[in-house]
Every structure is written in structure tokens, then in C-alpha cells.
């Protein structure tokens, strides 16, 4: 088992995390300066936490209490740094050779040739890092780390894609700001902010059910409303939620009473928009459009009361001349935090 429990203090925040790293990819997602890179550095042995314990494959590599702190060279962790870390004075082959220098010559040669083929780098084997493209540099960095047969691969916020990560057989701790990559490649997602883990679970589970306002904000959910439970009906599995300027019907909220204050999160892609004037759909709010921002795959509409809706470009093209707007909140899309 590989597990990490570390604590250390920094001027801006205190890091205090405890998590296990199963086989596959574990993604660390959070804002800048939330402690993600410090975690990677601590696991790799490049920095020494004040407290905690780190196990790699059931072997203790750091234990603050018993003052165990294995140096980085004895931890067998591969590390893909955010900045390019291929040795600039060595060729690509020389970089790979550095990782397997202890192997017998023939075996070393075979492994290097095999890895160059596997990572599609054979044509660039004798080039220096400065002559490689950004994609080749990244592949070369992963190839070099993998060649050393690490127990754990640490990847710090670099533009690694899913296909490249699939070439890695060992457990991987991935720091990323790409939620799509988390969904497609990671088996476990850890949301981290100010040195604390806000939520953990499978990426789909975390994205679908944020547990706190901070987690929802971190996941980019813009529709966050603070309101009061006006009615609860367990028989009909419904609740009535009142916000400052509008009210909504949501699913029944267990473990709450009428009058409780709650936060409600609604993914902007789950909202539907209709023109004003047609029969109001259930659970809809009449609002004025404030701003339109086109995006790659959708158009983001910002309405008054800080309501955001993402609709497809075709849908916006149909409705762009609306004189007024109604935003429909499907009850199933309401997440009570």
C-alpha cells in the first residue's frame, strides 16, 4: 500500500493531508498555491514535512516521529516536473541512459531502444532536449522516469494527455488543472484547497456530488445560491427552497428541518433557457440577460441574480433574439450542499 500523511506549515497556509494511493491514477486538483507540489516534493523526498508518515509499497520512507527520512535517490519515485527537467547537456539517449546506468551494458541498450520505440522517440534519440518539440520533451521526461521502474510516478501539472499516461504501469499521483483529464484517466480525485483535502472519491462522484461550497467553487460550479428551506415533503420527495429573489422546488433534503439555511449548487450546463412569453415551465425563473460569452463548445449566458447557463451554440442561435428569458432549474440538477 502507498499512503501519504503529512503536515507542514507555510506562511500562507498549513498543509495537512492524509490519503492512500491505489493502483492507477490519483489526481490532485486544486487552485495554485494550495500545496499540491509540496505533496509531490514530500513524497519524492525533495522536501521534509514537519509531521506525518509516507509509505511506498508498504515501506516507510518518511516518519517524522521516528525520524526516518529516506533520501530521494532511495525512494524510487519517478517525477515529471512542471518545468522541463531533461538534462540539457545530454542527448535524449544520454538522458535515458542516466536512469538505467546500473544495468549491464547489453540490457541497458535493449531497454533504451525499447523505450524509445514505445514512446515514439526513436527518430530523436540523438537530439539534445533543446532540439525537441514540447510534446517530445514531455514524452521523453515520462520515458526517462518510467525507465527507472519507479514504485510511484509523480506528475506535476504538465500537459500530459491520457494516451501518454496510459503508457505508465505504476501508480501515479497526478497534479492537474484539467478536470476532463481527471474524468478520463483518474480512478481517484482529491480536491485540495489551502493545504486541506476538501473531498475525495471517483471523479464522476466528486463532480456530480460536491460536498461543500468550497468544493463546488473549486469544480467551477458558478450557480451557488444560499437560501432557506421553506417546505419539506418526504412523501412527494420534494422541498421548497427560498432564495433572496426567487424560489425553487428541489428534491427532499434528508437530515434537515424547515427553516434551515442551505447552499444549493446547480451545474450551469444543467439549466435550460426559454423565451419569456411562453407558458412558464415548472421550476423556472424570469430573468434578464446580463452578458453572453461564447466558448469553444457552448455559449455561457449570465443572467441577473448571478445565474449562469451554458447552452449549445445552435440553441443560442435559435434564441438570441429573445425579448425576455426564463431559466428552468430541473429539480434533479439541484445539489444541496
Amino acid at each position, binding site marked *: 500500500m502507498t499512503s501519504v500523511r503529512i503536515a507542514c506549515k507555510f506562511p500562507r497556509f498549513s498543509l495537512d493531508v492524509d490519503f492512500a494511493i491505489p493502483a492507477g491514477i490519483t489526481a490532485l486538483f486544486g487552485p495554485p498555491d494550495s500545496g499540491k507540489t509540496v505533496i509531490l516534493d514530500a513524497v*519524492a*523526498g*525533495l522536501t521534509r514535512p514537519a509531521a506525518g508518515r509516507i509509505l511506498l509499497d508498504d515501506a516507510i520512507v518518511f516518519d517524522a516521529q521516528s525520524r526516518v527520512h529516506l*533520501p*530521494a*535517490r*532511495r*525512494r*524510487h*519515485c*519517478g*517525477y515529471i*516536473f512542471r*518545468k*522541463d*527537467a531533461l*538534462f*540539457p*547537456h545530454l542527448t535524449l539517449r544520454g538522458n535515458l541512459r*542516466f*536512469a538505467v546506468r*546500473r544495468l549491464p551494458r547489453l540490457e541497458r541498450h535493449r531497454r533504451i531502444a525499447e523505450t524509445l520505440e514505445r514512446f515514439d522517440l526513436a527518430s530523436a534519440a540523438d537530439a539534445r532536449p533543446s532540439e525537441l518539440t514540447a510534446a517530445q520533451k514531455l514524452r521523453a521526461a515520462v520515458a*526517462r*522516469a518510467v525507465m*527507472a521502474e*519507479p514504485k510511484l510516478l509523480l506528475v506535476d501539472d504538465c500537459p500530459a494527455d491520457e494516451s501518454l499516461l496510459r503508457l505508465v504501469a505504476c501508480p501515479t499521483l497526478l497534479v492537474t488543472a484539467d478536470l476532463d483529464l481527471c474524468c478520463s484517466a483518474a480512478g481517484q480525485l482529491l480536491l485540495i484547497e489551502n493545504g486541506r483535502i476538501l473531498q475525495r472519491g471517483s471523479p464522476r462522484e466528486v463532480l456530480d456530488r460536491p460536498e461543500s461550497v468550497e468544493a463546488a467553487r473549486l469544480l467551477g460550479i458558478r450557480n451557488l445560491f444560499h437560501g432557506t428551506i421553506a417546505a419539506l415533503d418526504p412523501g412527494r420527495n420534494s422541498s421548497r427552497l427560498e432564495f433572496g429573489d426567487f424560489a425553487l422546488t428541489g428534491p427532499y433534503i434528508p437530515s434537515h428541518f424547515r427553516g434551515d439555511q442551505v447552499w444549493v449548487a446547480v451545474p450551469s450546463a444543467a439549466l435550460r433557457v426559454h423565451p419569456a412569453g411562453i407558458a412558464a415551465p415548472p421550476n423556472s425563473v424570469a430573468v434578464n440577460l446580463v452578458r453572453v460569452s461564447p466558448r469553444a463548445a457552448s455559449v455561457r449566458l449570465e443572467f441577473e441574480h448571478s445565474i449562469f447557463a451554458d447552452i449549445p451554440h445552435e440553441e443560442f442561435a435559435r434564441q438570441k433574439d429573445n425579448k425576455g428569458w426564463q431559466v428552468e432549474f430541473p429539480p434533479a440538477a439541484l445539489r444541496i450542499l
Partner: protein
Amino acid sequence: MPVEWSPLWLSLRAAGTATAAALLPGLWLGYVLRDRPRASALAALPLGFPPVIVCAFLLSTYARRAFGWEFAAAAGIVYALPLLARAARAAFLEIEPQYAAAARTLGASEWRVFWVIALPLAWRPIFGAASLAFARLLAEFAIVLFLAGRAPAPPVAAALAAIALAAVYAGQRAAAGARRRA
């Protein structure tokens, strides 16, 4: 009258030996002190002693025989070591830290990181510092010869000056190349 070239060979031998002997320990000192500014400042203290004074001290303490070039070389080491260590430390600090970190995660010992990563990446400014140390020592020994009343013949003095200037120029050109690359 034939020109007496021995002062040139003596100065070259003493300065060359001192620079060569101080090179490796100076580099290693610079490497291990790169994260220790206070210790690095202490290590620079010998720069306050001119080689002439150190040489005089060594002679008064150990010498029972005539002045030997070995004493001059020993005094030169005391001077060249901190000079090289300071320059090497500055050069090592300029290397992006992820290179050494990557090497360590790949299982490299500190000695290997020093030899295979740090030294090749920092050789230009180190070469600049070594040639500067060599030129300074050469000039110091020439001054000593003057003070001792053994003023070298004009061709010897000119050769000493030319070698010192060439060493400074070559070293600083190499160091400037490193800065331009960075």
C-alpha cells in the same frame, strides 16, 4: 646577455599547481555550500589574506631551507580555494534546481549529481573563475619577485603579463558565453 627565464617557469609552476590543486576541493566546497550562505561567507575569509602574507607565514613556520616554489603554491591554494568556491557556488546556484532534483529521483548520489549534472552545466563560469585565480596568482608571484629584488627581465615580465591577460580574457569570454546562453 642571456635572458633568465626561470622566474617565468617558477611563477607558472606555482600558480598552475595552486590553481589545479584548489580546483576540485573548491568546486566541491562551492557545491556543498550552495544552500548555506553563512558558511559560504566564512569560507571566503581566506581571501582577506594576500598570498604573500600566507607564504611568509609558511616560511617562518616550516621553512628551514631556502624559498621553495612549493610554499608559494601552498599559499596560492589558500587564496585560490575560496575564490573558486565562491565562483562555483554562484555558478551552481544558477542551474535550474529541477535538474538536480530529477537526477536524485532517478537514483543518483550527490557525488554523481555533482559530476554528471552540476559540473557540465556550470563549467563555463567555473573556467572563468579558475583562469582568474591563475592570473591573479601569477601576478602575485611576479610582484613577490620584484619585491625580493629579482626583477625579471623585460621579455619575462612581458610573457608573464601576456599569459595573465590571456588567461583573464579567455576565462571571462567563456563565462560571458554562459551568461548569454542562460
